[in-house]
Protein backbone atom coordinates (compact mmCIF):
# COMPACT_ATOMS: atom_id res chain seq x y z
CA UNK A 1 0.00 0.00 0.00
CA UNK A 2 1.31 3.42 -0.99
CA UNK A 3 1.81 6.09 1.60
CA UNK A 4 -0.80 8.80 0.99
CA UNK A 5 0.17 12.48 0.94
CA UNK A 6 -2.98 14.29 -0.21
CA UNK A 7 -6.54 13.17 0.27
CA UNK A 8 -9.85 14.65 -0.83
CA UNK A 9 -13.15 13.34 0.49
CA UNK A 10 -16.44 14.38 -1.14
CA UNK A 11 -14.73 17.60 -2.07
CA UNK A 12 -16.85 20.11 -4.01
CA UNK A 13 -16.01 23.64 -5.11
CA UNK A 14 -18.43 26.37 -6.10
CA UNK A 15 -18.00 29.65 -7.96
CA UNK A 16 -20.98 31.44 -6.44
CA UNK A 17 -23.88 29.10 -7.27
CA UNK A 18 -22.01 27.20 -9.96
CA UNK A 19 -20.62 23.84 -8.91
CA UNK A 20 -17.22 23.46 -10.59
CA UNK A 21 -16.07 20.32 -8.79
CA UNK A 22 -18.51 17.62 -7.74
CA UNK A 23 -17.78 15.42 -4.72
CA UNK A 24 -14.28 14.38 -5.60
CA UNK A 25 -12.61 11.69 -3.52
CA UNK A 26 -9.08 10.59 -4.24
CA UNK A 27 -5.81 9.76 -2.51
CA UNK A 28 -2.55 10.99 -3.95
CA UNK A 29 0.43 8.79 -3.06
CA UNK A 30 3.60 10.29 -1.62
CA UNK A 31 6.75 10.49 -3.74
CA UNK A 32 4.92 9.66 -6.91
CA UNK A 33 3.84 11.72 -9.90
CA UNK A 34 0.08 11.95 -10.21
CA UNK A 35 -1.41 13.38 -13.40
CA UNK A 36 -4.84 15.00 -13.78
CA UNK A 37 -6.11 14.63 -17.33
CA UNK A 38 -9.36 15.58 -18.99
CA UNK A 39 -10.81 17.96 -21.58
CA UNK A 40 -10.68 21.75 -21.14
CA UNK A 41 -12.99 23.05 -18.44
CA UNK A 42 -13.25 19.71 -16.60
CA UNK A 43 -11.94 21.27 -13.40
CA UNK A 44 -8.50 19.66 -13.28
CA UNK A 45 -6.69 22.98 -12.72
CA UNK A 46 -9.28 24.01 -10.14
CA UNK A 47 -8.72 20.73 -8.31
CA UNK A 48 -4.95 21.25 -8.45
CA UNK A 49 -5.24 24.79 -7.11
CA UNK A 50 -7.34 23.50 -4.22
CA UNK A 51 -4.33 21.82 -2.65
CA UNK A 52 -2.56 25.14 -1.94
CA UNK A 53 -5.81 27.09 -1.62
CA UNK A 54 -5.05 29.36 -4.55
CA UNK A 55 -8.75 29.32 -5.47
CA UNK A 56 -9.37 31.53 -2.46
CA UNK A 57 -7.96 34.46 -4.44
CA UNK A 58 -11.10 34.37 -6.57
CA UNK A 59 -14.02 36.17 -4.90
CA UNK A 60 -17.10 34.03 -4.32
CA UNK A 61 -15.39 30.64 -4.11
CA UNK A 62 -16.82 28.19 -1.59
CA UNK A 63 -15.92 24.59 -0.83
CA UNK A 64 -17.51 21.54 0.76
CA UNK A 65 -15.92 18.31 1.91
CA UNK A 66 -12.43 17.61 3.15
CA UNK A 67 -8.92 18.03 1.82
CA UNK A 68 -6.11 16.55 3.88
CA UNK A 69 -2.37 17.04 3.64
CA UNK A 70 -0.89 14.05 5.43
CA UNK A 71 -3.45 13.86 8.24
CA UNK A 72 -4.21 17.57 8.60
CA UNK A 73 -7.19 19.51 7.26
CA UNK A 74 -5.70 22.11 4.87
CA UNK A 75 -8.53 24.55 5.53
CA UNK A 76 -7.59 24.63 9.21
CA UNK A 77 -3.91 25.17 8.50
CA UNK A 78 -2.41 28.64 8.26
CA UNK A 79 -2.41 29.42 4.55
CA UNK A 80 1.19 30.73 4.59
CA UNK A 81 2.39 27.52 6.16
CA UNK A 82 0.29 25.42 3.78
CA UNK A 83 1.83 27.10 0.75
CA UNK A 84 5.26 26.55 2.21
CA UNK A 85 4.49 22.83 2.31
CA UNK A 86 2.70 22.76 -1.04
CA UNK A 87 4.59 24.62 -3.76
CA UNK A 88 3.32 25.48 -7.22
CA UNK A 89 4.63 25.87 -10.75
CA UNK A 90 2.40 27.68 -13.21
CA UNK A 91 1.48 27.23 -16.84
CA UNK A 92 3.46 30.23 -18.04
CA UNK A 93 6.88 30.67 -16.50
CA UNK A 94 6.45 33.58 -14.09
CA UNK A 95 9.83 34.59 -12.70
CA UNK A 96 9.79 37.94 -10.90
CA UNK A 97 11.56 40.80 -12.71
CA UNK A 98 14.53 40.36 -10.38
CA UNK A 99 17.86 38.59 -10.60
CA UNK A 100 18.07 34.80 -10.81
CA UNK A 101 19.48 34.71 -7.27
CA UNK A 102 16.71 36.93 -5.88
CA UNK A 103 14.11 34.73 -7.54
CA UNK A 104 15.40 31.51 -5.98
CA UNK A 105 15.91 33.00 -2.54
CA UNK A 106 12.59 34.89 -2.53
CA UNK A 107 10.71 32.16 -0.65
CA UNK A 108 13.30 31.55 2.09
CA UNK A 109 13.72 35.31 2.61
CA UNK A 110 9.96 35.82 2.89
CA UNK A 111 9.93 33.11 5.53
CA UNK A 112 12.50 35.02 7.53
CA UNK A 113 15.89 33.61 6.55
CA UNK A 114 18.58 36.32 6.53
CA UNK A 115 21.82 34.36 6.77
CA UNK A 116 23.65 35.07 3.50
CA UNK A 117 25.71 31.91 3.33
CA UNK A 118 22.66 29.74 4.07
CA UNK A 119 20.73 31.54 1.34
CA UNK A 120 23.56 31.04 -1.11
CA UNK A 121 23.65 27.34 -0.24
CA UNK A 122 19.89 27.04 -0.75
CA UNK A 123 20.17 28.83 -4.10
CA UNK A 124 22.86 26.46 -5.31
CA UNK A 125 21.08 23.37 -4.05
CA UNK A 126 17.70 24.37 -5.50
CA UNK A 127 19.12 25.35 -8.87
CA UNK A 128 21.09 22.11 -9.00
CA UNK A 129 17.99 20.06 -8.23
CA UNK A 130 16.14 21.97 -10.94
CA UNK A 131 18.96 21.10 -13.40
CA UNK A 132 19.68 24.77 -14.00
CA UNK A 133 22.79 25.41 -11.91
CA UNK A 134 25.38 24.67 -14.61
CA UNK A 135 23.66 27.02 -17.04
CA UNK A 136 23.29 29.98 -14.71
CA UNK A 137 26.00 29.69 -12.04
CA UNK A 138 28.01 32.50 -13.67
CA UNK A 139 25.08 34.85 -14.08
CA UNK A 140 23.18 34.56 -10.81
CA UNK A 141 22.97 38.32 -10.54
CA UNK A 142 21.55 38.88 -13.99
CA UNK A 143 17.85 39.40 -14.63
CA UNK A 144 15.77 36.23 -14.76
CA UNK A 145 13.82 37.79 -17.62
CA UNK A 146 16.80 37.25 -19.92
CA UNK A 147 16.56 33.45 -19.63
CA UNK A 148 14.82 31.30 -22.24
CA UNK A 149 11.28 30.04 -21.56
CA UNK A 150 12.50 26.58 -20.58
CA UNK A 151 15.16 28.00 -18.27
CA UNK A 152 12.60 30.36 -16.73
CA UNK A 153 10.32 27.41 -15.98
CA UNK A 154 13.16 25.47 -14.37
CA UNK A 155 13.96 28.61 -12.36
CA UNK A 156 10.34 28.65 -11.18
CA UNK A 157 10.73 25.01 -10.15
CA UNK A 158 13.94 25.90 -8.29
CA UNK A 159 12.10 28.78 -6.64
CA UNK A 160 9.38 26.38 -5.47
CA UNK A 161 11.95 23.84 -4.22
CA UNK A 162 13.83 26.49 -2.25
CA UNK A 163 11.21 26.58 0.51
CA UNK A 164 11.52 22.76 0.93
CA UNK A 165 7.93 21.82 0.17
CA UNK A 166 6.52 18.32 0.51
CA UNK A 167 4.33 18.63 -2.57
CA UNK A 168 4.89 20.42 -5.88
CA UNK A 169 1.81 21.24 -7.93
CA UNK A 170 2.41 21.77 -11.63
CA UNK A 171 -0.27 23.36 -13.78
CA UNK A 172 0.55 22.38 -17.38
CA UNK A 173 4.19 23.28 -16.72
CA UNK A 174 5.36 22.53 -20.25
CA UNK A 175 2.47 23.77 -22.36
CA UNK A 176 4.22 27.07 -23.15
CA UNK A 177 7.54 25.38 -23.96
CA UNK A 178 9.13 23.84 -27.03
CA UNK A 179 9.63 20.03 -27.25
CA UNK A 180 13.28 20.09 -26.12
CA UNK A 181 12.49 22.20 -23.07
CA UNK A 182 9.48 19.97 -22.41
CA UNK A 183 11.64 16.83 -22.30
CA UNK A 184 13.97 18.56 -19.84
CA UNK A 185 11.07 19.40 -17.54
CA UNK A 186 9.80 15.82 -17.73
CA UNK A 187 13.22 14.39 -16.89
CA UNK A 188 13.45 16.83 -14.05
CA UNK A 189 10.09 15.70 -12.65
CA UNK A 190 11.32 12.15 -12.63
CA UNK A 191 14.37 13.04 -10.58
CA UNK A 192 12.30 15.21 -8.22
CA UNK A 193 9.81 12.56 -7.17
CA UNK A 194 12.40 10.94 -4.97
CA UNK A 195 12.08 13.87 -2.60
CA UNK A 196 8.71 15.42 -3.44
CA UNK A 197 5.17 14.41 -4.21
CA UNK A 198 4.28 15.82 -7.61
CA UNK A 199 0.83 16.53 -8.97
CA UNK A 200 0.64 17.65 -12.57
CA UNK A 201 -2.21 18.89 -14.73
CA UNK A 202 -1.69 18.21 -18.40
CA UNK A 203 -3.55 18.43 -21.66
CA UNK A 204 -1.04 16.16 -23.25
CA UNK A 205 -1.92 12.50 -22.79
CA UNK A 206 1.43 11.26 -24.02
CA UNK A 207 3.00 13.40 -21.35
CA UNK A 208 0.75 11.93 -18.68
CA UNK A 209 1.60 8.43 -19.90
CA UNK A 210 5.33 9.21 -20.02
CA UNK A 211 5.86 10.85 -16.66
CA UNK A 212 3.13 9.88 -14.24
CA UNK A 213 2.73 6.92 -11.92
CA UNK A 214 -0.94 7.56 -11.24
CA UNK A 215 -3.60 9.21 -13.35
CA UNK A 216 -6.94 10.77 -12.51
CA UNK A 217 -9.39 11.34 -15.35
CA UNK A 218 -11.88 14.17 -14.88
CA UNK A 219 -14.90 15.00 -16.98
CA UNK A 220 -17.77 17.45 -16.78
CA UNK A 221 -21.26 16.12 -16.23
CA UNK A 222 -24.47 17.46 -17.77
CA UNK A 223 -24.40 20.42 -15.33
CA UNK A 224 -20.83 21.32 -16.38
CA UNK A 225 -19.55 20.29 -12.96
CA UNK A 226 -16.20 18.48 -12.89
CA UNK A 227 -16.39 14.86 -11.78
CA UNK A 228 -13.63 12.35 -11.33
CA UNK A 229 -14.35 9.42 -13.57
CA UNK A 230 -11.45 7.18 -12.74
CA UNK A 231 -8.25 7.11 -10.74
CA UNK A 232 -5.52 4.50 -10.75
CA UNK A 233 -2.00 3.51 -11.76
CA UNK A 234 -1.16 5.18 -15.05
CA UNK A 235 -0.37 2.00 -16.96
CA UNK A 236 -3.73 0.51 -16.00
CA UNK A 237 -5.64 3.68 -16.89
CA UNK A 238 -3.95 3.79 -20.27
CA UNK A 239 -4.11 0.08 -21.10
CA UNK A 240 -7.32 -1.17 -19.52
CA UNK A 241 -9.49 1.67 -18.24
CA UNK A 242 -12.53 0.45 -16.37
CA UNK A 243 -14.78 3.28 -17.51
CA UNK A 244 -15.95 3.60 -21.11
CA UNK A 245 -15.55 7.42 -21.04
CA UNK A 246 -11.91 7.11 -20.01
CA UNK A 247 -11.26 4.78 -22.89
CA UNK A 248 -13.00 7.12 -25.33
CA UNK A 249 -10.94 10.05 -24.14
CA UNK A 250 -7.62 8.23 -24.14
CA UNK A 251 -8.16 6.80 -27.59
CA UNK A 252 -8.91 10.30 -28.83
CA UNK A 253 -12.60 9.87 -29.56
CA UNK A 254 -13.33 13.26 -27.94
CA UNK A 255 -11.69 16.10 -26.01
Amino acid at each position, binding site marked *: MEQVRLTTRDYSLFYGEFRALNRISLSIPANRITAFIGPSGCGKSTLLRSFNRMNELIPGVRTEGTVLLDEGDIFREDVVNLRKRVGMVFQRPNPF*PKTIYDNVTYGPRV*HGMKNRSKLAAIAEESLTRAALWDEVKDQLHKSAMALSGGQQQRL*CIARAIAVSPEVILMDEPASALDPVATIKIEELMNSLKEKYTIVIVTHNMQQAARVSDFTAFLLTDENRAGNMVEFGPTNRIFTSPSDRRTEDYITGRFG
Partner: protein
Amino acid sequence: MRKLVQNAAFTVFWMAGLGAVLIMLSVVGYVVFKGFADITPEFFTTSPRGGLSGEGGIQSTIITTVYLVVLTLLVATPLGVGAGIYLVEYADQARSGFMKRITSAARFGVETLAGVPSIIFGLFGYALFVTALKLGFSLASAALAGSCLIIPVIIRTTEEALKAVPDSYREGSLALGASRWETIWKVILPSAFPGITTGIVLGAGRIVSETAIFFVTLGGSYRTPTSLLASGRSMALHVYYLAMETRAFDKAMATAAVLVVLVILMNLSINMISRRITRDTR
Protein backbone atom coordinates in the same frame (compact mmCIF):
# COMPACT_ATOMS: atom_id res chain seq x y z
CA MET B 1 -11.94 57.24 -56.32
CA ARG B 2 -11.30 55.49 -53.02
CA LYS B 3 -7.66 56.30 -53.35
CA LEU B 4 -8.53 59.96 -53.90
CA VAL B 5 -10.66 60.06 -50.75
CA GLN B 6 -7.90 58.41 -48.81
CA ASN B 7 -5.32 60.89 -50.06
CA ALA B 8 -7.61 63.82 -49.28
CA ALA B 9 -8.24 62.49 -45.76
CA PHE B 10 -4.54 61.97 -45.14
CA THR B 11 -3.78 65.48 -46.34
CA VAL B 12 -6.35 66.94 -43.94
CA PHE B 13 -4.95 64.94 -41.01
CA TRP B 14 -1.42 65.87 -41.97
CA MET B 15 -2.30 69.56 -42.10
CA ALA B 16 -4.08 69.32 -38.74
CA GLY B 17 -1.05 67.64 -37.23
CA LEU B 18 1.29 70.18 -38.74
CA GLY B 19 -0.92 73.02 -37.50
CA ALA B 20 -0.93 71.68 -33.96
CA VAL B 21 2.84 71.28 -33.94
CA LEU B 22 3.33 74.75 -35.40
CA ILE B 23 1.11 76.40 -32.81
CA MET B 24 2.94 74.63 -30.01
CA LEU B 25 6.36 75.44 -31.43
CA SER B 26 5.49 79.09 -31.93
CA VAL B 27 4.26 79.47 -28.33
CA VAL B 28 7.31 77.79 -26.86
CA GLY B 29 9.63 79.43 -29.38
CA TYR B 30 8.22 82.91 -28.81
CA VAL B 31 8.46 82.64 -25.03
CA VAL B 32 11.91 81.10 -25.05
CA PHE B 33 13.42 83.50 -27.64
CA LYS B 34 11.84 86.58 -26.22
CA GLY B 35 12.54 85.53 -22.66
CA PHE B 36 16.11 84.41 -23.06
CA ALA B 37 17.10 87.79 -24.48
CA ASP B 38 16.71 89.23 -20.97
CA ILE B 39 18.27 86.40 -19.00
CA THR B 40 21.60 87.11 -17.33
CA PRO B 41 23.37 85.21 -14.55
CA GLU B 42 22.21 87.92 -12.12
CA PHE B 43 18.62 87.12 -13.07
CA PHE B 44 18.97 83.82 -11.22
CA THR B 45 20.98 85.11 -8.28
CA THR B 46 18.99 88.18 -7.26
CA SER B 47 15.51 88.37 -5.85
CA PRO B 48 12.65 90.57 -7.02
CA ARG B 49 12.68 94.00 -5.44
CA GLY B 50 8.95 94.60 -5.65
CA GLY B 51 7.29 97.79 -6.77
CA LEU B 52 5.81 98.75 -10.11
CA SER B 53 9.05 98.60 -12.06
CA GLY B 54 9.42 94.86 -11.41
CA GLU B 55 13.14 95.06 -10.94
CA GLY B 56 15.35 92.26 -9.73
CA GLY B 57 15.73 88.60 -10.60
CA ILE B 58 13.86 85.44 -9.66
CA GLN B 59 16.02 83.82 -7.00
CA SER B 60 13.43 83.85 -4.22
CA THR B 61 10.74 82.54 -6.57
CA ILE B 62 12.92 79.60 -7.58
CA ILE B 63 13.53 78.78 -3.93
CA THR B 64 9.82 79.14 -3.14
CA THR B 65 8.95 76.84 -6.06
CA VAL B 66 11.36 74.19 -4.80
CA TYR B 67 10.00 74.45 -1.24
CA LEU B 68 6.47 74.23 -2.53
CA VAL B 69 7.12 71.18 -4.73
CA VAL B 70 8.98 69.32 -1.98
CA LEU B 71 6.39 70.09 0.70
CA THR B 72 3.48 69.19 -1.54
CA LEU B 73 5.05 65.89 -2.59
CA LEU B 74 5.82 65.06 1.05
CA VAL B 75 2.11 65.27 1.79
CA ALA B 76 0.66 64.00 -1.49
CA THR B 77 2.95 61.07 -2.31
CA PRO B 78 2.26 58.84 0.70
CA LEU B 79 -1.47 59.60 0.61
CA GLY B 80 -1.82 59.21 -3.16
CA VAL B 81 0.33 56.11 -3.53
CA GLY B 82 -1.25 54.57 -0.44
CA ALA B 83 -4.76 55.18 -1.75
CA GLY B 84 -3.81 53.72 -5.15
CA ILE B 85 -2.39 50.59 -3.51
CA TYR B 86 -5.49 50.26 -1.36
CA LEU B 87 -7.86 50.58 -4.32
CA VAL B 88 -6.08 48.05 -6.54
CA GLU B 89 -4.58 45.54 -4.14
CA TYR B 90 -7.11 45.48 -1.32
CA ALA B 91 -10.45 47.04 -2.23
CA ASP B 92 -10.71 45.21 -5.57
CA GLN B 93 -10.34 41.92 -3.71
CA ALA B 94 -13.20 42.83 -1.39
CA ARG B 95 -16.10 40.44 -1.31
CA SER B 96 -18.82 42.45 0.40
CA GLY B 97 -21.15 44.56 -1.72
CA PHE B 98 -20.83 47.44 0.73
CA MET B 99 -17.04 47.67 0.27
CA LYS B 100 -17.45 47.47 -3.49
CA ARG B 101 -19.85 50.41 -3.46
CA ILE B 102 -17.49 52.46 -1.28
CA THR B 103 -14.65 51.66 -3.65
CA SER B 104 -16.49 52.62 -6.79
CA ALA B 105 -17.65 55.82 -5.10
CA ALA B 106 -14.03 56.59 -4.19
CA ARG B 107 -12.92 55.90 -7.75
CA PHE B 108 -15.63 58.15 -9.16
CA GLY B 109 -14.55 60.86 -6.74
CA VAL B 110 -10.92 60.55 -7.77
CA GLU B 111 -11.77 60.78 -11.44
CA THR B 112 -13.99 63.80 -10.93
CA LEU B 113 -11.42 65.59 -8.79
CA ALA B 114 -8.73 65.01 -11.42
CA GLY B 115 -10.77 67.16 -13.80
CA VAL B 116 -11.72 69.98 -11.43
CA PRO B 117 -10.14 73.39 -12.23
CA SER B 118 -7.34 74.30 -9.89
CA ILE B 119 -8.99 77.50 -8.68
CA ILE B 120 -11.70 75.36 -7.05
CA PHE B 121 -9.03 73.64 -4.99
CA GLY B 122 -7.68 77.14 -4.34
CA LEU B 123 -11.01 78.35 -2.95
CA PHE B 124 -11.32 75.21 -0.84
CA GLY B 125 -7.77 75.70 0.42
CA TYR B 126 -8.49 79.36 1.15
CA ALA B 127 -11.59 78.52 3.14
CA LEU B 128 -10.10 75.60 5.05
CA PHE B 129 -6.36 76.11 5.45
CA VAL B 130 -5.94 79.89 5.13
CA THR B 131 -9.03 80.95 7.07
CA ALA B 132 -10.51 78.17 9.20
CA LEU B 133 -7.22 76.59 10.27
CA LYS B 134 -5.64 80.06 10.48
CA LEU B 135 -2.56 79.09 8.50
CA GLY B 136 -2.83 82.33 6.53
CA PHE B 137 -1.29 82.85 3.11
CA SER B 138 1.62 80.50 3.58
CA LEU B 139 3.71 77.63 2.25
CA ALA B 140 1.74 75.33 4.54
CA SER B 141 -1.64 76.39 3.12
CA ALA B 142 -0.33 76.23 -0.43
CA ALA B 143 1.27 72.81 0.00
CA LEU B 144 -1.90 71.38 1.56
CA ALA B 145 -4.13 72.84 -1.18
CA GLY B 146 -1.60 71.70 -3.82
CA SER B 147 -1.71 68.20 -2.35
CA CYS B 148 -5.48 68.11 -2.79
CA LEU B 149 -4.90 69.06 -6.42
CA ILE B 150 -2.35 66.38 -7.26
CA ILE B 151 -3.44 63.49 -5.03
CA PRO B 152 -6.03 62.40 -7.64
CA VAL B 153 -3.31 62.46 -10.31
CA ILE B 154 -1.00 60.32 -8.16
CA ILE B 155 -3.80 57.91 -7.22
CA ARG B 156 -4.72 57.37 -10.86
CA THR B 157 -1.19 56.81 -12.13
CA THR B 158 -0.46 54.52 -9.17
CA GLU B 159 -3.58 52.52 -9.99
CA GLU B 160 -2.59 52.25 -13.64
CA ALA B 161 0.96 51.21 -12.73
CA LEU B 162 -0.29 48.53 -10.33
CA LYS B 163 -2.84 47.18 -12.78
CA ALA B 164 -0.07 46.84 -15.36
CA VAL B 165 1.81 44.40 -13.09
CA PRO B 166 0.92 40.89 -14.35
CA ASP B 167 -1.24 38.80 -12.01
CA SER B 168 1.22 35.96 -12.51
CA TYR B 169 3.67 37.85 -10.25
CA ARG B 170 1.05 38.06 -7.51
CA GLU B 171 0.19 34.36 -7.88
CA GLY B 172 3.84 33.36 -7.95
CA SER B 173 4.59 35.23 -4.76
CA LEU B 174 1.46 34.11 -2.88
CA ALA B 175 2.07 30.50 -3.92
CA LEU B 176 5.46 30.67 -2.22
CA GLY B 177 3.72 31.51 1.04
CA ALA B 178 4.24 35.26 0.96
CA SER B 179 1.52 37.33 2.58
CA ARG B 180 -0.44 39.86 0.58
CA TRP B 181 1.60 42.71 2.06
CA GLU B 182 4.96 40.99 1.39
CA THR B 183 3.83 40.42 -2.18
CA ILE B 184 2.97 44.10 -2.59
CA TRP B 185 6.13 45.35 -0.93
CA LYS B 186 8.66 42.98 -2.49
CA VAL B 187 7.26 42.19 -5.93
CA ILE B 188 4.44 44.51 -7.00
CA LEU B 189 5.79 47.89 -5.90
CA PRO B 190 9.28 47.37 -7.41
CA SER B 191 7.65 46.42 -10.72
CA ALA B 192 5.25 49.35 -10.60
CA PHE B 193 7.89 51.80 -9.39
CA PRO B 194 8.63 53.52 -12.74
CA GLY B 195 4.92 54.07 -13.37
CA ILE B 196 4.37 55.46 -9.90
CA THR B 197 7.36 57.76 -10.31
CA THR B 198 5.80 59.07 -13.51
CA GLY B 199 2.70 60.02 -11.53
CA ILE B 200 4.76 61.82 -8.90
CA VAL B 201 6.70 63.78 -11.54
CA LEU B 202 3.42 64.67 -13.27
CA GLY B 203 2.16 65.96 -9.93
CA ALA B 204 5.34 67.98 -9.42
CA GLY B 205 4.84 69.47 -12.89
CA ARG B 206 1.33 70.53 -11.93
CA ILE B 207 2.66 72.31 -8.83
CA VAL B 208 5.34 74.10 -10.84
CA SER B 209 2.90 75.34 -13.46
CA GLU B 210 -0.34 76.05 -11.54
CA THR B 211 -1.04 79.70 -10.69
CA ALA B 212 -4.61 80.33 -9.60
CA ILE B 213 -4.62 77.86 -6.71
CA PHE B 214 -1.51 79.45 -5.21
CA PHE B 215 -2.77 82.97 -5.78
CA VAL B 216 -5.37 82.33 -3.07
CA THR B 217 -3.27 80.15 -0.74
CA LEU B 218 0.38 81.14 -1.05
CA GLY B 219 -0.23 84.87 -1.22
CA GLY B 220 2.39 86.77 -3.17
CA SER B 221 5.31 87.89 -1.05
CA TYR B 222 8.40 88.21 -3.21
CA ARG B 223 10.70 87.45 -0.29
CA THR B 224 12.22 84.06 0.33
CA PRO B 225 9.96 82.26 2.83
CA THR B 226 11.65 81.61 6.16
CA SER B 227 9.04 79.36 7.73
CA LEU B 228 6.13 77.11 6.85
CA LEU B 229 3.79 79.92 7.78
CA ALA B 230 5.50 82.50 5.54
CA SER B 231 3.92 83.69 2.33
CA GLY B 232 5.83 83.37 -0.93
CA ARG B 233 5.68 83.45 -4.68
CA SER B 234 6.25 80.48 -6.98
CA MET B 235 7.71 81.16 -10.44
CA ALA B 236 4.37 80.77 -12.18
CA LEU B 237 2.79 83.14 -9.71
CA HIS B 238 5.65 85.58 -10.25
CA VAL B 239 4.95 85.60 -13.99
CA TYR B 240 1.37 86.51 -13.22
CA TYR B 241 2.33 89.33 -10.83
CA LEU B 242 4.93 90.73 -13.22
CA ALA B 243 2.53 90.70 -16.15
CA MET B 244 -0.47 92.15 -14.31
CA GLU B 245 0.98 94.49 -11.71
CA THR B 246 4.27 95.81 -13.07
CA ARG B 247 5.64 97.32 -16.24
CA ALA B 248 8.32 94.59 -16.51
CA PHE B 249 6.76 92.50 -19.24
CA ASP B 250 10.25 91.47 -20.38
CA LYS B 251 10.98 90.04 -16.93
CA ALA B 252 7.68 88.13 -17.05
CA MET B 253 8.75 86.69 -20.38
CA ALA B 254 12.17 85.73 -19.05
CA THR B 255 10.65 84.02 -16.03
CA ALA B 256 8.18 82.25 -18.30
CA ALA B 257 11.05 81.03 -20.47
CA VAL B 258 12.79 79.49 -17.46
CA LEU B 259 9.50 77.90 -16.43
CA VAL B 260 8.92 76.47 -19.92
CA VAL B 261 12.40 74.94 -20.00
CA LEU B 262 11.85 73.47 -16.53
CA VAL B 263 8.55 71.88 -17.55
CA ILE B 264 10.12 70.49 -20.74
CA LEU B 265 12.91 68.94 -18.65
CA MET B 266 10.37 67.35 -16.32
CA ASN B 267 8.45 65.87 -19.25
CA LEU B 268 11.69 64.52 -20.73
CA SER B 269 12.40 62.80 -17.45
CA ILE B 270 8.95 61.15 -17.62
CA ASN B 271 9.77 59.94 -21.13
CA MET B 272 13.01 58.47 -19.85
CA ILE B 273 11.20 56.70 -17.04
CA SER B 274 8.60 55.21 -19.35
CA ARG B 275 11.28 54.09 -21.78
CA ARG B 276 12.88 52.29 -18.88
CA ILE B 277 9.57 50.55 -18.21
CA THR B 278 9.27 49.24 -21.75
CA ARG B 279 12.88 48.11 -21.76
CA ASP B 280 12.56 46.27 -18.46
CA THR B 281 9.42 44.38 -19.31
CA ARG B 282 10.73 43.21 -22.65
